[in-house]
């Protein structure tokens, strides 16, 4: 009988912890700050978890009140249900579950800044990350270029598509899918046109949250197509110790699934006025794209013409655009 009583107390306590986790999820969703932890396209999973946690919590509490102590007897698994060890170990184990709840509820929500960027290293341009050249604009989405079809084919049926892809690619060798296929000149010009049309001036690209990674990728792979282009980009200021006073990086953190995989992407900016900005200030830079050099490597660089102070946006993170 003693064990039964103990057992229902555990069920009761666990029910409360489950409700606690559900409340933490719900609270983060309601304040909108969940976006500081989880990438936006993963949100359906978080909704799912919140509902299931509530449900499990309620079921646990109901279970703890059931009078006919034979909850375990109906089950043949032996015991997976209890919590082992003496009292102090049990307390310790529940404290482990209390820790994320207390931290989550009580600590302020924190956004990543240049100190994290320093530890992680900056991707100038975008490293290897090649994103699909699909902007948010409808004109481009309507285009039936091959790469869009591929993305759709993948979205409809990831498994089948990848198998197909393997079959397609195998005989022709691994080099079949090259950068050029995704960023061929024509498609790239189209992209330019749509972006330029949208902002009503020739040869001008405004980098915003949705196209940040796309443009960084395009800059990295096709710098020559961009040199001489006017560009406006917003982000936080990051400086390496060896930078000149008029040099800085305008950077953003990108998130794929959760904040643990955050990576920093940025573009080198040079120009008079840059020295006025401190590490982590948010700034909007307008200038001309040119070839720059850092650590003996050619990198995209914006020769700045104007700087503008910016507030840190509510959601400082950018996401890959493929989802």
């Amino acid at each position, binding site marked *: *009988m003693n064990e039964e009583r103990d057992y229902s107390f555990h069920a*009761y306590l666990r029910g*409360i912890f489950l409700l606690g986790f559900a409340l933490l999820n719900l609270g983060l969703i309601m304040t909108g700050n969940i976006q500081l932890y989880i990438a936006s396209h993963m949100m359906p999973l978080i909704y799912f978890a919140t509902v299931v*946690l509530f449900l499990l919590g309620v079921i646990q509490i109901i279970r703890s009140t059931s009078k006919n102590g034979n909850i375990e007897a109906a089950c043949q698994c032996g015991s997976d*249900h209890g919590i082992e060890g003496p009292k102090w170990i049990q307390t310790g184990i529940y404290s482990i579950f209390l820790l994320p709840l207390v931290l989550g509820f009580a*600590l*302020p929500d924190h956004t990543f800044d240049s100190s994290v960027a320093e530890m992680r290293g900056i991707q100038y341009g975008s490293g290897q*990350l090649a994103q699909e050249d699909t902007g948010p604009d409808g004109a481009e989405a309507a285009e039936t270029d091959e790469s869009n079809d591929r993305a759709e084919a993948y979205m409809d049926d990831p498994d089948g598509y990848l198998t197909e892809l393997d079959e397609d690619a195998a005989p022709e060798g691994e080099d079949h899918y090259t950068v050029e296929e995704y960023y061929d000149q024509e498609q790239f010009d189209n992209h330019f046109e749509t972006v330029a049309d949208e902002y009503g001036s020739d040869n001008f690209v405004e980098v915003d949250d949705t196209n940040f990674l796309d443009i960084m990728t395009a800059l990295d792979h096709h710098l020559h197509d961009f040199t001489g282009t006017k560009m406006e980009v917003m982000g936080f200021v990051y400086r390496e110790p060896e930078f000149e006073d008029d040099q800085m990086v305008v950077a953003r953190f990108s998130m794929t699934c*959760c904040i643990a995989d955050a*990576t920093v992407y940025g573009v080198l900016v040079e120009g008079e006025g840059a020295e006025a900005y401190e590490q982590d200030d948010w700034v909007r830079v307008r200038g001309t794209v040119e070839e720059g050099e850092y650590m003996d490597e050619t990198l995209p660089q914006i020769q700045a013409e104007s700087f503008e102070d910016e507030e840190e946006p509510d959601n400082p993170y950018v996401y890959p655009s493929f989802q």
Partner: protein
Amino acid sequence: MPKTSGPPAWLKDGFGIVLLLGFILLFFNMANTADDGIFTLPSEWLVVNTIFLGILLEAIPFLLLGVFVSALIQVFVSEDALNRYLPKNAYAALFPAAVLGAIFPICECAIIPVVRRLIKKGMPLHVGVVFLVGAPILNPVVAGSTYFAFRDDLTVFYLRFGLAFGLAILIGGIMYLIFKNRDQLKWRSEELLGKESIDIKQGPPQKQHRLKQTFYHASDEFFLMGKYLIAGALIAAMFQTFLDREFLASLGANDWASTAVMMAFAYVLSLCSEADAFVAASFGNLFNEGSLAAFLLYGPMLDLKNTIMLFAFFKARFVLYFMVIVTIAVFSAIMGVQLFLL
């Protein structure tokens, strides 16, 4: 009712109610704490906290999926049924196991409860090992994200999935050679009693209880697994915060060193296998393709958070062998590939 030891019932109930009220109060206070917090920590520890919560919030839905699959197996799949579908020859089971692992979209947080449950139900150990190693990598979602991250040059993509399939079978085979079918799970004494009582034929559980049982199992297993996940996420968050990645890159001077460094890195980061490809891609300018593939192979097979779970549920000797074999297998496969193919 006999006297219970410990605190009286009203105290226990009261404690729970106070706890719940506390959560509710904190919940309604969240809009205020979002910016300032009730208390606060130095900035770098806020980063640790953010990564810790990020990993956890992200992992919980997957863990829930894992424990529900496990609970459904427990309640609805009988041992007889399982044994009927398994090939009689131990080695013949390896290949279908790897294929099955590729079909189930289960990542590394969810795979441990499922494998543990299947082994408890009588599935051979080495088949479980194939799942453990293969399933987190060989799955459609991971294939998708790896493909997107490395679209420029699919070498890493092919290396990851080709080698994951081969290595899963190889590692499963080696584990069979060492352990045969000896039981490597930890059983508690009362569980062994439970195990016995299964042998004494009981009637099938009553139908109306099955749904209830599934939910009970799922939430109990959530707590069983959850504590290890939380501990692992906390340690991983500290590594994520305090490890300088460019220093890491400076260690990887040659092929073997950079492969070893990337494997160690994958181990401590404990990333979700769905997202690790993008992190690997961000190292494209610092590391060669072989090392990136090593990162993408080793991390999902073995990392900090799942090591803690493995030690909790399997015998220590088994986990140590498993870790050594996986490490050697991944490392030599990558070195071999770099020597002969790249």
